[in-house]
C-alpha cells in the first residue's frame, strides 16, 4: 500500500541525499566536465599561452584510421575477456552457490576475492613472471611433459587476455553468485519432481533466473577492459598498443591532454552506444 506523503518529507529526503549528490558532483561530475572542456581546447590551460576552442581533437580521431583500428582492437579485447570471464566465472559461481556449503565455501570465496586485495601492478608483474619465456609456466610444463615446451605467451595478445581475465573474473563470479543464491532451492526440487534433468534445469531455470547477475558482471568486465592500458602495456609488449594505452600516452608521455580527453570521450560514447544497442537483448534477460 502506498503511504501518503508526509509534509516536509521531500525536503528531508533532499537533505539526506545532499551529501551523496555533493560527493558525486565533486568526484565525478566536475572532473568529467573539466575533461570534456579540455577536449575542445587546443592545449591544456596550464601553460602561458591561452588555448583556443577547437574541434581539432575529435577531427583527429576521424581522420586517423589508426585510432579507429585500435578502438576496434580494444573492443575485440573487451569481448574476448568478457566471454572468457563468463565462461569461467559462471560455472564457478554455480558450484559455489549450489554445491559447496559452510567453511569450504568461505575459503573458496576468499580465493575468488584475493585478486582484489593485491595491487594490480603486482598482479600483472606476477603474470609476467609466470608467462615469460623460460618462466614459471614454461619450466613447469617442461618438467611435466616429455618434450620441449616453448609456449612463448609473454608479449602476445593471449598474455593480455590472461592478465585481464584474472583481474576481472571476480566481478562475474560475485554478481552471478548473488543472482544464483537468490534462487529458492525448492524450485530445483519442483523441476526434478516434474521429471527435469540437469540440462533442462540449467537451460530453463538457472540460466534465465541468474541472467541479470551474469549480465551485470559482463558489463562490469567489458567497460573497464575496453579502456584498459596497464595489462596491455606490461603483458602485451609490441602487441600491447590498444586504445587505452594511446589515451594514457596522451596524458603521460605526449602531454596532449585535449587529444587524450577527446579520445576518452569517444571511447565513452562508443561503449555507451554498444550498451545502448544491446539493451533490448539485455533487458529481455533482466525480466
Amino acid at each position, binding site marked *: 500500500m502506498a503511504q501518503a506523503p508526509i509534509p516536509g518529507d521531500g525536503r528531508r529526503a533532499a537533505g539526506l541525499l545532499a551529501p551523496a549528490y555533493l560527493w558525486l558532483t565533486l568526484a565525478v561530475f566536475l572532473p568529467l566536465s573539466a575533461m570534456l572542456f579540455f577536449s575542445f581546447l587546443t592545449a591544456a590551460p596550464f601553460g602561458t599561452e591561452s588555448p583556443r576552442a577547437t574541434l581539432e581533437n575529435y577531427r583527429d580521431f576521424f581522420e586517423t584510421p589508426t585510432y579507429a583500428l585500435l578502438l576496434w582492437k580494444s573492443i575485440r579485447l573487451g569481448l574476448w575477456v568478457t566471454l572468457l570471464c563468463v565462461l569461467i566465472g559462471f560455472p564457478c559461481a554455480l558450484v559455489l552457490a549450489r554445491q559447496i556449503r559452510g567453511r569450504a565455501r568461505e575459503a573458496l570465496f576468499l580465493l575468488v576475492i584475493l585478486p582484489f586485495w593485491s595491487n594490480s601492478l603486482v598482479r600483472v608483474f606476477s603474470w609476467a613472471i609466470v608467462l615469460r619465456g623460460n618462466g614459471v609456466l614454461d619450466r613447469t610444463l617442461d618438467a611435466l611433459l616429455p618434450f620441449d615446451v616453448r609456449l612463448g605467451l609473454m608479449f602476445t595478445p593471449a598474455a593480455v587476455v590472461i592478465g585481464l581475465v584474472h583481474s576481472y573474473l571476480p566481478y562475474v563470479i560475485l554478481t552471478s553468485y548473488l543472482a544464483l543464491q537468490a534462487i529458492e532451492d*525448492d*524450485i530445483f*526440487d*519442483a523441476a*526434478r*519432481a516434474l*521429471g527435469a534433468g540437469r540440462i533442462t534445469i540449467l537451460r*530453463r531455470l538457472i540460466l534465465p533466473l541468474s541472467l541479470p547477475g551474469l549480465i551485470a558482471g559482463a558489463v562490469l568486465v567489458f567497460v573497464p577492459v575496453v579502456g584498459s592500458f596497464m595489462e596491455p602495456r606490461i603483458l602485451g609488449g609490441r602487441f600491447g598498443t590498444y586504445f587505452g594505452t594511446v589515451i594514457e600516452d596522451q596524458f603521460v608521455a605526449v602531454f596532449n591532454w585535449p587529444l587524450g580527453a577527446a579520445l576518452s570521450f569517444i571511447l565513452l560514447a562508443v561503449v555507451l552506444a554498444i550498451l545502448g544497442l544491446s539493451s533490448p537483448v539485455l533487458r529481455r534477460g533482466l525480466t
Partner: protein
Amino acid sequence: MAEVSVAGVTMRFGEMTALDDVSLDFVNGGFFALLGPSGSGKTTLLRVIAGFLFPQAGRVRIAGQPVERVPVEKREIGMMFQNYALFPNLTVAENVGFGLRVRHVSRAEERRRVGEALDLVQLSGLGARRPRELSGGQRQRVALARAIVTNPKVLLLDEPLSALDKALRVDMQIELKRIQREVGITTIFVTHDQEEALTLADRIGILRDGRLVQAGPPREVYNAPIDTFTARFLGEANLLPDPLPVPLPDGARLSLTSAAAHAVRPEALTLSPGPIAAAENLLPGRLVSRVFAGSMATCIVAVLGETWKVVARDRDLPQLPENTEVWLGWARADTIPIDRA
C-alpha cells in the same frame, strides 16, 4: 491394492535417525495425511517416497515397482511444495506445461492439457500471467495444476496450505478435496495441522520421533488413540492422572476400565457449579479461566492436579467467576481407554 507402499524404511542423517523402520501402505485413490510435530520425520518420509532421499534400509514401491533407488525425476510423481516453488521466470501456462515439455509432449497436446488443468483448478484465462502477479491462493492452484498435469501415479503435498491465511485455507481444503476426488489420484500430504488432517484425509498416519505411532481412518484414530501422545496430538485430550489419588475427593466418582490410561475429550465434558446427579463420571475442580472464541467457549479447569479443558457452546457453559469450585461430569462411553501411556 496399495498404490504406494513403504516397508521397513529407515533414514539416517549422520547420527540422527529421521525415520526408524516405518511401514505404511497407501491405498489407491486414497487421501492420506501424515501428521506429526516438527521433527517427527513426516517430511522426510514424503521426500523418501518422492525420491529426493534414498533410505538406508527398507523398500518403497510405487504401483508395485520397487523404486527406493530410482531418483525423483524418474518416479512419475507429482509434488506440491510449501511455498509452491513456482518458476518465477515462466508464465502460469509455462509453469503448468513444464513437466509436459520435459516429456516431449507435442505443443498442441501441451496446450490442451494445460488448459484442462487450469480449468480444473479454476484458473482458466490466467495462463499468460507471471507467478508474481497472482495471489497466494492462485499460486497454490497453479502449483496443484502443475503437479497433476502429467498424470502422476501419486500426488505428494508438503504442508500445502500452511502459507495461506485461515479463511483461504478452509476454501482451499474443500477445493483440494474436490480436485482429488475428481482426478482420483492417490494423494499423500504432510501437515502439522491436525484439524486439516481430520478434514481432508480418509486415512491418517501419526509420526513421532521418526516412528509411525498409529495409522487408520481419522475417526478411528481420534476415538481410539493408541497412546497418550496420539490422544493429545490429534485433537485435545484431558488425561486422568496416573496413578489416581487415593482416596478420590469427596463426591467424585469414576468408572474406568483396566486400560493403562484414560482420556476425555473437552467437548464430552459437562461443567456445572454443583455435582451432576446423572453423570457416570464426576470430578470436582477449580475454574482457572474462561476463554470466549465466538461460536465456542473454553473453560480451563484444575482437576486432580491436572489442567483440563472444557469446550462447549458459550451459552451452554455457566457464567462463573474464576477460582470457584465446579464439577465436571461425563458419560462412561466418553472415557477413552488408552493402551499405552
